[in-house]
């Protein structure tokens, strides 16, 4: 009953979306506002309908309807309530519904807010949003239906289908398989929704860009309308990536936060192009330049959002053969090709009307440095994209080797791993160059900046930055990577702090305000600028955490008898005891107790453990961590003897500065919130708009 209700709402959403697309196209082409309004209503209806679908799945998950295939795959009797609810995005079919639900919510929010302001865009914004939504709905209806039930045929075969096959009987299981243990972590409650929110929110600026291309309104209006949507998309995606890193650090048990896994990279790629877009749109807003480039960046970001979902959903990452066998893979591939082709076709059609209104005349101007910034972000993207795609390509080109034996040496068809050694080597210098640019760009001016003016602006913070290498010498740090990385981080920090200080001081002198009030008012008056600077500070703090692990991390492993100690840097652990016990949620837990000593003094006890999930027969290693601002001491239980006194094996990591990664993440998010917060000027009342217009008239400019 509930499954039918959810499925019915899903079908209805599909039909309503189809109607909305047709109505919007007709209304847009024939200039019929009634049809556009009707399309808008259709779009507004998709969200409540999909809410019914999502709630139906949650109901089935919570009440353990194991006759439903999806429910049996992702829940079990032993799972707590919150995990049963979050199992909505714990499997493929549910996560596609969740994606659609968020997409419908975002698209509806766009049409609810200031609907009358940019009417010429809206039919096409509705078309693009609903086409994207319909694609995901069609996947849910035709390929990955979350409401399919298990049936038993007269021959004893078990099949899954939405409706009862002839002569079959419903198969109701007593218990489900349960959620993947890796996903049973509080981080997983919030990490996927944040990523998905980031993904779907990037559809909005793309929809406006396509609307601008269709209508021929190729000024920067579409960018101004979507600036906040883009920032929110970027905020959610950034939050999703940071939370993903934290989840990996807490759950995956390898002492790190980022493993250059293709799934991680597929989420980072739209972030990279989105970041480049956020910088380059400023050039269009300020100087009327780079219009083609901005269009290309937002199209690329949109298709990377779909591509990322394709990579993780099609099975292509495990094997190219899985892609060929799954129905979902070719559909995704076709949709990406279609949207990319149509977008590029429209861009070429409008190419001449997107010419720059200004020219770049100075190589050290802000816009020139932003272009270099774009090059660096795109370079990191190229490295990542190629690293993810190459293993698939290498396996697929084996067919050439098979067809032409003389080429088999080149096209061996072997599956290869492109892992951290490739990414770290290729991206390290690019990240360093980005930091250098982040250090000098805030001091360059729009339009015109020379080495003399830039030098005059930068010499003070650059001089203060010299403190960093001196400090590194005093501390006895000899790694060249640390010298370069920390000095660059210092430069960015001091330049940003100098910018805050300089502006606050000027305001303090002009208005006689105290410095904090001046700083507060400055940030309030130019949220984008100071939000951006706060983001830079966040990035620098995060870079401290990254360098802490990449350069200074140490590790050791040993098997200890009870009472024995293992030393790592200034820390030592002493193995005390180990207990094994079952839990009510279907785990067999082995938990060790170790005492931690720093410089010979007892500091705390840690409880690293290994959870073995009986339903899925999967182990999970949960570290014991002593965390401070200076470092993390991270202990893993690797192995143990059946009788604990005979010994247990521990792997221990010393991760200096790693907590600055999470603190920096918070500062980064705070900066994005400052930049995305609506300006009072932007939200002016009609009376104030009229007054501003009158004032503009009076000043005669």
């Amino acid at each position: 009953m509930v499954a039918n209700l959810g499925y019915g709402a899903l079908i209805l959403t599909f039909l309503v979306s189809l109607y909305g697309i047709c109505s919007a196209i007709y209304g847009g082409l024939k200039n019929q506002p009634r049809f556009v309004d009707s399309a808008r209503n259709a779009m507004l209806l998709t969200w409540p309908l999909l809410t019914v679908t999502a709630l139906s799945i949650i109901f089935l998950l919570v009440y353990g309807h194991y006759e439903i295939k999806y429910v049996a795959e992702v829940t079990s009797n032993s799972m707590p309530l919150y995990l049963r609810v979050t199992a909505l995005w714990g499997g493929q079919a549910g996560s596609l519904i969740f994606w659609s639900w968020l997409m419908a919510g975002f698209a509806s929010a766009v049409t609810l807010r200031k609907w009358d302001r940019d009417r010429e865009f809206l039919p096409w914004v509705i078309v693009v949003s609903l086409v994207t939504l319909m694609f995901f709905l069609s996947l849910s209806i035709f390929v990955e239906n979350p409401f399919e039930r298990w049936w038993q045929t007269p021959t004893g075969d078990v099949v899954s289908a939405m409706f009862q096959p002839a002569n079959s009987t419903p198969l109701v299981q007593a218990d489900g398989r349960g959620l993947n243990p890796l996903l049973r972590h509080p981080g997983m409650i919030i990490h996927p929704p944040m990523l998905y929110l980031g993904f779907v929110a990037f559809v909005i600026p793309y929809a406006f860009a396509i609307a601008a291309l269709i209508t021929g309104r190729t000024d920067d209006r579409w960018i101004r309308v979507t600036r906040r949507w883009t920032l929110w998309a970027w905020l959610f995606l950034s939050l999703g990536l940071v939370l993903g890193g934290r989840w990996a650090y807490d759950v995956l048990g390898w002492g790190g936060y980022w493993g250059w896994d293709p799934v991680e990279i597929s989420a980072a790629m739209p972030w990279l192009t989105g970041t480049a877009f956020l910088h380059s749109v400023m050039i269009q807003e300020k100087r009327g330049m780079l219009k083609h480039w901005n269009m290309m960046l937002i199209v690329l970001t949109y298709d990377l959002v779909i591509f990322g979902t394709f990579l993780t959903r099609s099975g292509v990452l495990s094997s190219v053969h899985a892609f060929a066998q799954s129905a979902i893979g070719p559909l995704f591939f076709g949709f990406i090709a279609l949207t990319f082709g149509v977008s590029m076709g429209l861009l070429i059609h409008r190419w001449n009307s997107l010419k720059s209104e200004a020219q770049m005349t100075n190589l050290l101007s802000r816009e020139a440095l932003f272009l270099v910034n774009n090059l660096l972000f795109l370079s990191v993207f190229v490295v990542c994209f190629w690293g993810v795609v190459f293993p698939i390509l290498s396996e697929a080109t084996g067919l050439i080797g098979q067809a032409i034996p003389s080429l088999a040496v080149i096209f061996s068809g072997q599956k290869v791993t492109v892992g951290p050694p490739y990414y770290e080597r290729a991206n390290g210098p690019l990240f360093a160059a980005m930091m250098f640019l982040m250090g000098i760009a805030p001091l360059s001016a729009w339009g015109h900046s020379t080495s003399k003016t830039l030098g005059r602006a930068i010499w003070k913070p650059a001089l203060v930055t010299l403190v960093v290498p001196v400090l590194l010498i005093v501390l006895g740090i000899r790694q060249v990577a640390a010298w370069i990385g920390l000095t660059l981080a210092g430069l960015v920090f001091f330049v940003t702090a100098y910018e805050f200080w300089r502006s606050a001081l000027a305001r303090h002198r002009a208005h006689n305000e105290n410095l904090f009030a001046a700083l507060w008012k400055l940030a309030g008056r130019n949220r984008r600028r100071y939000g951006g600077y706060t983001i830079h500070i966040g990035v620098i703090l995060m870079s401290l955490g990254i360098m802490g692990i990449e350069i200074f991390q140490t590790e050791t492993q040993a098997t200890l008898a009870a009472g024995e100690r293992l030393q790592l840097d200034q820390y030592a652990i002493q193995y005390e005891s180990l207990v094994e016990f079952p839990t009510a949620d279907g785990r067999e837990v082995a938990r060790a107790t170790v005492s931690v000593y720093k410089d010979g003094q007892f500091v705390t006890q840690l409880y690293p453990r290994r959870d073995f999930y009986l339903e899925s027969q999967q182990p999970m290693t949960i570290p014991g961590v002593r965390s401070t601002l200076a470092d993390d001491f991270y202990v893993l239980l690797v192995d143990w003897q059946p009788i604990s006194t005979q010994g247990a094996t521990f792997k221990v990591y010393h991760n200096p500065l790693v907590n600055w990664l999470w603190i920096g993440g918070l500062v980064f998010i705070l900066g994005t919130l400052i930049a995305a917060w609506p300006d009072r000027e932007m939200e002016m009342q009609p009376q104030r708009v009229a007054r501003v217009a009158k004032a503009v008239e009076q000043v005669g400019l």
Partner: protein
Amino acid sequence: MKNRTSFFLFTFAVLMLCLSALPSIALAQSSSGGEVTDDEVNTVAKDLYCPVCENIPLDVCPTKACADWRDEIRLKLNEGWTKDQIKQYFVDRFGDRVLGAPPARGINWLVYILPPVLILVGVYVLYRAFQSWRQIPPLQAEEFTASPTQAPQSQDEYMKKLEEQLKASDR
């Protein structure tokens, strides 16, 4: 001006080249001589990828199969095998996928060649664009910078006047 710009670009290039030559991770300490330690096993296992679980280095993979492979590494080290010999042994058994980066042969060369080539193409395109922009005569350049938005200074004046008018009308 041209010299200064060249210096600027040169500094970038040198910085990037210097960093690409750096080792990225400091390895943990390990004992030498006598019985093979866990750290010595992990130094080898860190460079190998679990042939069963995707994208998980062998030194941290928690599965039973990987624990057995780590024991195999320990045995080989005890027998006096070198790190490279052990890595080749695993490659022979499970294929190139056990290595963290593809060996540079056959089509695998593309992994290492394509990204730098594309990045250099990007640098060249940007360089050409800068060159073409700089060839605009100063007068024409001024016209360009003045349109469509005002230069920063005149914009500031505009904002100042606008603020004054708004303040006056607020009174």
